[in-house]
């Protein structure tokens, strides 16, 4: 068995074990209704987390996605309110804007040689500020097309509803898996995460890949904003504060190494589901406060980082290069 698979397997085992514990206490949690809701409620987080997975795989970080999601919601709501445009051209325009926004951050990171942390921090301020400028109040979205999107679902056996946005999240994960593991771009991302200097010597187009990674993250944050707007039927500039942290946590819990170069997009899906499951459990229980979510997620983060540290240590010992930080490959 490949040591690289171990974090992913650990994630899946933890998810199944947690689900089993929940099932023993509340048998109803296994119904497709709960599963459907789990997918619907976490759709926007999942889509944004796919973008975050690519960014983290490349050894970067993107703090701007929460703000970009909020900006997207406000942008859609304001455009629908103030212009007579149909939602579809608005969506296209929004995705172009957020993709360009991400590409600009990628270009800044690459050409100014600055840490992604501070560049995307500026992006976070900028996107949130733009959302404020568009509207500081919550703007309701009232359009037939949104009702269609919201009510579209496929009835699963057991009367569970796989909604459009839940299905969209699964599709995005599928596309992300293909992109990461079956395309040249994906290979370049992994190579970049293993070390920019090495990647460049190997002939990886570092500049193009870096820009494309952040553009992808911007695109998915925009898509996540569309999903969030559909989910809440409103645009609000104070919404989705701190979603970037949830996304980072989901990626880490999903077994991706935060130093980059190792991990799986599929793991992120399980990470998102684990976080959703904790919330579902708290709702089912009814007596626990929601802040337990934060503590449990913090603990899981810690446990997974320790696990990864241990694996990296073991794999470097095996190769006899005890001092060099290994990438677990």
């Amino acid at each position, binding site marked *: 068995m490949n040591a690289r698979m171990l974090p992913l397997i650990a994630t899946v085992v933890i998810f199944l074990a947690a689900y089993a514990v929940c099932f023993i206490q509340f048998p109803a949690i296994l119904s497709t209704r709960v599963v459907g809701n789990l997918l619907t409620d976490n759709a926007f987080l999942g889509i944004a987390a796919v973008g975050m997975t690519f960014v983290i795989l490349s050894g970067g970080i993107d703090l701007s996605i929460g703000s970009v999601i909020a900006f997207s919601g406000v942008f859609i709501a304001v455009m629908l309110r103030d212009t007579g445009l149909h939602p579809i051209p608005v969506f296209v325009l929004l995705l172009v804007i957020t993709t360009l926004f991400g590409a600009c951050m990628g270009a800044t990171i690459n050409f*100014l*040689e600055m840490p992604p942390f501070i560049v995307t921090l500026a992006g976070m301020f900028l996107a949130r500020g733009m959302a404020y400028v568009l509207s500081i109040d919550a703007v309701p979205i009232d359009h037939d097309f949104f009702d269609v999107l919201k009510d579209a679902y496929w009835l699963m056996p057991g009367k569970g509803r796989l909604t459009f946005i839940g299905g969209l999240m699964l599709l995005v994960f599928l596309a992300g898996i293909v992109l990461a593991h079956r395309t040249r771009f994906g290979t370049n991302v992994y190579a970049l995460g293993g070390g920019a200097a090495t990647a460049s010597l190997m002939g990886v187009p570092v500049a193009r890949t870096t820009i494309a990674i952040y553009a992808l993250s911007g695109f998915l944050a925009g898509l996540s904003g569309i999903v969030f707007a559909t989910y809440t039927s409103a645009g609000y500039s104070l919404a989705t504060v701190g979603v970037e942290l949830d996304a980072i946590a989901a990626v880490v819990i999903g077994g991706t190494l*935060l130093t980059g170069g190792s991990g799986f997009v599929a793991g992120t899906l399980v990470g998102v589901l684990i976080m959703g499951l904790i919330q579902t459990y708290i709702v089912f229980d009814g007596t626990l406060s929601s*802040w337990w979510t934060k503590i449990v997620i913090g603990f899981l983060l810690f446990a997974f*980082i320790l696990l990864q540290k241990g694996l990296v240590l073991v794999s470097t010992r095996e190769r006899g290069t005890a001092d060099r930080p290994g990438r677990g490959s």
Partner: protein
Amino acid sequence: MNGAARFARRIAPQLAILAAILVLISIVFPGFFEVRIANGRLYGSPIDILNRGAPVALLAIGMTLVIATRGIDLSVGAVMAICGATAAWGSTEGYALPATLALSIAAGLACGLWNGFLVAVLRIQPIVATLILMVAGRGIAQLITEGAILTFNQEGLIFIGSGSILTVPTPVIIWMIAGLLFTLVVRWTALGMLIEAIGVNLRASTLAGVNSRVLLIAVYMASGLCASFAGIIAAADIRGADANNAGLWLELDAILAVVIGGTSLLGGRFSILASLIGALIIQAMNTGILLSGFPPEFNLIIKALIVLTILVLQSPATRTAAIFFRRQPGTDPADTRTVTP
């Protein structure tokens, strides 16, 4: 003499930016520099900037040291919430003021110890290591306050937030003394130099005999200590501990203050004074935007533009270009980094 001149040149850009912002505000809002004494306390917009800027200034002191070691502490906002909650809890449980403060400071030091342990002993990247406490910290603070906003009425504790000593508001005195003490400790001893050495090259300084492990833990504990001061002030200011909102996103402001202060996120040379000026710049901007009647929505955009400008100025790529253009006959070819005899 030479050292003083170099130091003046180091903080000149920050002072210039601060002066420019203050002049801009006073143009838009003519009564800006008026300071008066009422009820034995100084009042006025400049005092307000010093007073409101206290939490970020305090956080920036600890953050400067952490960033100088090439680290980052994302948890300070959450640690503020924990320490504020601890202080409020101690006060409502009827502990005396010294005991309450000691408890709260101990909580801050413990948080710093945890972060330092993760970074120095387990060798986890600082962003990730402190992210854990950033996510879990507010939950822990909620545990202490039991989900409610814990209010208190202890005179001594409230004095820390809204009292004044010799007409100067207490928070201002606290951050100034903290800044002075930290500067003295790191600059009168070799500590500052050792911290910079760790930031430049952890391995090399370890091989050179620097006890990097202990020093890293100490630096994160210093950050926790500063966060506990800031948390106590924030809680005392509103006479209650709000686990959800105390210190929310202040870690970003503190990092911004350090970056504006010219300390590189890549570690190495640092200046606590410059970071404090950076904190004042941020607060002056916030106050200025409010005073001038400019829509507060633009606050974040202006902040983002300032960060971007500083990024461009600090970028290694720009520095290379600057050196290239400066290499002309008759000018000083020395890079700012090389030591001129």
